[in-house]
């Protein structure tokens, strides 16, 4: 992604890819519109998150649009990774419809698949805040 001095993307419609290491899998969250201009970046992000023997979850629940060539990237990735690749889409969205029509394997989730991590302070707990545990929000 090309960025300016302050780190902002020069394409104001560019999607965002954020990877998150979980105990059971690597997760690649895709935000925004996955159009033709973003396909090569999407492919790179996928490749960067492939680890030997680890499940890779592509979270498309925050993705609002997917172009056919991006779907092609996922089909090729599925062929290479088999069951180690899981694709999650939000129930009822445009992306879900595209996957249904194209008959590309996917899992449907009913809400955002990622659970925001929250810092929690238990009553009576003291000490610096950065020593507090991070855990999934309920």
């Amino acid at each position, binding site marked *: 992604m090309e*960025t*300016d001095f*302050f*780190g*902002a*993307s020069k*394409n*104001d*419609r*560019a*999607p*965002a*890819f*954020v*990877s*998150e*290491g979980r105990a059971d899998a690597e997760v690649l*969250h895709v*935000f*925004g*519109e996955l*159009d033709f201009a973003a396909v090569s970046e999407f492919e790179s*992000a996928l490749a960067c998150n492939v680890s030997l023997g680890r499940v890779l979850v592509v979270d498309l629940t*925050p993705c*609002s649009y997917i172009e056919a060539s991006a779907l092609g990237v996922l089909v090729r990735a599925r062929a290479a990774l088999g069951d180690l690749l899981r694709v999650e889409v939000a129930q009822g969205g445009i992306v879900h419809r595209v996957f249904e029509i194209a008959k590309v394997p996917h899992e449907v989730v009913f809400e*955002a698949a*990622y*659970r*925001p*991590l*929250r*810092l*929690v*302070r*238990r*009553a009576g707990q003291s000490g610096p*805040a*950065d020593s*507090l545990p*991070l855990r999934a*929000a309920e």
Partner: protein
Amino acid sequence: MSQEEPLFRSVSSEVDAHNRAMSIPITEVVRELVDLLGATTVAVIGGVGETRAVQRWMTDREPQRPHVLRFALQVGMTIASSADREIARAWFHGSNPALSDQSPMLVLRNQPLHDVQAAVLAAARAFSRRVGPGASHPQSRDESAAGGPLEPRTRDGVG
């Protein structure tokens, strides 16, 4: 039984939100944003590709776009002071008609802050007024005075 206290602090006015977001250390800004929005969303707003970077911002690394994170916290506090925190999260993710149907989160990531600051703040104010308890922000300016919505753009950027 343990009782959990969120790190994110509610504020009573927009001025409080601004003062707090601009005055606390950046590590604290990141912590409160993570508490409010989650590490994944903070990574998007902060312009990075992994949540691990966000974890580092809370300890020893300086984020590359601290001004954007401070502004996001200011906006987040403005919304969360009049709405549920879950609604504040949804606002950052949702396609916003006042921002040319883009999500505030991606607007903050993809565009220079000075270009979008007024529009994002105006959209947040308008939202707060609608979901909040009546006139909870008497000091709010009109949306038009704050810069109004972003110019509509087509998918290929021409328009």
